[in-house]
């Protein structure tokens, strides 16, 4: 397996940012702002954020803002909560949240809370606990959680709890590690983890580890590097991360590196992408891999960035 090819991964990310004319990058255009968040956070964890010119990034992020206050995935795209969080996170990385009209952005987010406490992703009304997380995380980073009904937001998430202690995207929907991260993260930010059956959910989550050491997202599915993040961060937030074999997971993630060209893939020998590179590096940071900046499991930003926002 070898060690983490940190330099190579940083180079890979800087290169992908510039690549424009292959199919993969064109197919990512609609979520470019998510891609930027993944890439920049990875660079920060690797200690390489200075390699990026924030004078270019910040204006581009702002160019994705829609008149409603929400952000689109790219310039000229419709606004959505998913992209709004990425925009806020990127600005937080550069300590530039003040460039935002905070009241306008928070009004946009708060306007998407429904009567039952759930959140729509945008004006078209798709409801999902992913959007609850995104809205709550965004508002917390802006110090504007008071703009929504927190009690109802908690109640809605609890109504999505399942037999296995996990959570789905709407009431009755099957548990899925990505969705669990969203629900646990949102509850953590709202100080409401006492609603979670930590032992039951912890058992389900720790059973996501398969023989290879990798983690899957649901029972009887293949392991995938991105679940290193979803499962690990959830296990950390409920204080059950000691229930998995961390060393085996480190090995699995390192096995998914492209040692030559940089980047990390979903499984060993698959094609790499920014998404999995981010989740692999962030996962290693959660596993206390040496030389990496610590990342916060709830806000998905480096710990020093989160502390700067909340502890001063």
């Amino acid at each position, binding site marked *: 397996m070898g060690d983490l090819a940190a330099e190579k991964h940083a180079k890979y990310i800087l290169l992908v940012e510039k690549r424009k004319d292959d199919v993969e990058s064109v197919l990512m255009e609609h979520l470019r702002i998510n891609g930027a968040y993944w890439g920049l956070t990875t660079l920060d964890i690797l200690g390489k954020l200075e390699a990026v010119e924030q004078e270019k990034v910040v204006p581009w992020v702002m160019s994705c803002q829609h008149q409603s206050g929400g952000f689109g995935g790219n310039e000229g795209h419709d606004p959505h909560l998913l992209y709004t969080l990425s925009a806020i996170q990127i600005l937080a990385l550069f300590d530039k949240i003040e460039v935002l009209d905070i009241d306008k952005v928070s009004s946009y987010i708060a306007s998407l809370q429904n009567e039952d406490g759930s959140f729509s992703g945008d004006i078209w009304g798709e409801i999902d606990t992913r959007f609850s997380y995104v809205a709550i995380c965004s508002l917390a980073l802006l110090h504007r959680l008071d703009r929504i009904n927190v009690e109802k937001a908690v109640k809605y998430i609890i109504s999505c709890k399942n037999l296995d202690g996990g959570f789905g995207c709407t009431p009755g929907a099957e548990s*899925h590690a990505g969705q669990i991260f969203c629900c646990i993260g949102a509850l953590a930010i709202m100080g409401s983890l006492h609603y979670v059956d930590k032992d039951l959910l912890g058992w389900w989550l720790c059973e996501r580890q398969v023989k290879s050491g990798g983690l899957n997202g649901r029972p009887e599915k293949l392991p995938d590097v991105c679940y290193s993040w979803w499962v690990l961060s959830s296990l950390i937030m409920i204080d059950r991360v000691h*229930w998995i074999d961390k060393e085996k997971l480190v090995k699995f993630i390192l096995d998914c590196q492209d040692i030559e060209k940089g980047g990390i893939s979903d499984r060993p*020998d*698959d094609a790499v992408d920014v998404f999995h590179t981010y989740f692999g590096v962030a996962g290693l940071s959660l596993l206390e891999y040496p030389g990496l900046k610590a990342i916060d499991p709830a806000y998905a930003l480096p710990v020093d960035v989160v502390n700067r926002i909340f502890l001063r």
Partner: protein
Amino acid sequence: MHGRPRKSATPVDENASALKAAKIRSLQSQFLQNHHNKMYKSYTKEALEINAKLIEVNPEFMTAWNYRKLAFEHSLSSQSEAEKGDSDHIKSIIDEELRVVENALRKNFKSYGAWHHRKWVVSKGNSSTERELRLLNLFQKQDTRNFHAWNYRRFIAGMKSISEEKELQFTTDMINDNFSNYSAWHNRSVLLSHLLEKKVEGYFPKETFLTEEYEFVRNAVFTDPDDQSGWFYHLWLLDQTIKLDMPILASFWPPPGSDLNVPIDLDANKATFPVILYFNEPVEGVSSQTITVQTEYDIHDNITWSPLSTNKFGCALAWVTHMRIPHEELDSSKTYQVKISSEHSQGITSLSGVSLNRPWSFAFTVSVCQHLQPAEGQSLGRLSLTDENFCTIDTNLNMTALLKSAFQFTNDDEQPTSSKWKSEIIASEISQYRELLSWAECKIGKLTLARLLVAYDAMITGTQFTPSIAEEVLQLLTELMKLDPPHYQYYKDEYSLILLKQIAVILQVTSSKESLLKYCWQYKESTSLNITGPTCLRLNSLSLSRIGSIEQLLWVQSLDLSHNQLHSIEGLEALQLLSCLNLSHNKLGSFMALDPLRFLKSLRILDISHNEIGAHTVDTKRYLCSSPLSHKVAFDKNFEEFANGDAKVMDFWEPFSIFGGLNLIQLDIMGNAAVDERFVLFLVKLLPALKWLNGEELH
């Protein structure tokens, strides 16, 4: 982004890719142009065709779906008079949308945008739900675990009011096709939960249905014990079998019938004692409205109950009130009775909103201890909590009787009358799983058997624990640690809980001389003849990785948990009498792991030396404790004042929030990565009452 093999692109590949990319890019820019010009141009056929092509190559392009929704609304609102009543016209518009969605789903079955668009269109009405079910049956056969399809199925079933029993049959069919279908088991639990809640005939009482379900899932688990599909369903059934229908008071302190002799705190010239209520699950609503406190001579008023937990919503397993004996009674020699009761505790509810509505009460007597004693640790030197300074207790002393009464508070009549059928079901499962283990060595067999045995024993004996069963469960967990090393710590934690329960029960039930001598010790300086302080419960060097059975330990004033493997002390907050606590040589990984100590206002002596505080970059307690990150507390402005502009002190926000509220006299904190000279200076400043730090006397 998933499942694409890693390979170097040849120049031919790169060329093809660039060509295709250019084509998509052109579609995207044409589409975006149309999208932004929509105010001027209407939704032309050409524009919609470009949009459909774009969606076909990239179903995740959300703005493209939004455009279709705008176009859909536009064409409905701009119908001519003739078209308005024409349902065929509307139908054709809808059909076109459903066709585009279907194409997108063929490209990417997991496209959120496509599924939502379908839902959005179908919920406008006018479309055939029959067709939706046909499509679902087709899709769900191809990909039996697709959660989008299952969600869509629940949506259609709800819209069309398809009966839950019919949907239940669908899950039965799916499972019979292939039992390895977690999605189907999940949906089954959802449907059954609804049927149980509504007490639909055939599902209430639960007996018959549970028996059938146990058999159904057993077939799956026994066919392939390594397949996880049925594991969690079985655990859910077990929970459905044993769970109580309402929260109960599990234990409390002071013990019923006991005589409290409350010492006067000379410094503060007051005498207080706590009353602790411990429930079997977190509850809210404990207050003077729901709890009645009757005292002779009306000695106490203004009683307030506080939750012992770090959540801001006022819910906790344990609640406490500190009753203060009024000043004018301090030199009186009267003994008076206190009765704590709850006749109408409907206001006390579990997190799921179920009320505790069974009356309960207990009573004890209180007097002021006139025999003046120095407050703990005050006039004494430093207590050295090492083995040679503990001597065995004198089992002939009254103390044994006191301990015994303290152990016997468990509220036996609150135990549910266990139904015969429940214990029979579990007994039959136990024999089935024993049978499985006789021919297959599998972890789920052992783990399930251990869980069944614990459940069965609790049902038969109440709070007790049959020694042979405890031994068997511990044996199973030991085997699991060997059989499944990656989850070693999970079994280890379970093991610790069972071990502690076993010890607590041995102490409580038998109060045998041997068990008391083994765990209860008396502090006595080896050089002195004097016995000092209360009896110490020594649970040291037991290799415990987790603590539990707290409800049995409410009487403890001095506790030794040193030389274990604890990384958490969650639960200790309920031990309100605790004045001396030894946690040295454990695995506590951060200051926030000490969060429960905040609630221990009587704590004077604390040893947390040789832990891992400061040794980790990841803090697993960060979101379980009080912190501005979880919005449980605001950032403490007092801290800024305390730090007084010293940027380095700003790093000590966490220890400030933990130790700031404690009244420690003696603290040992050596052997932690976070402790250096600067930190020691900070502690000395923060804790003015501290007399001993890391073995040295402070001046």
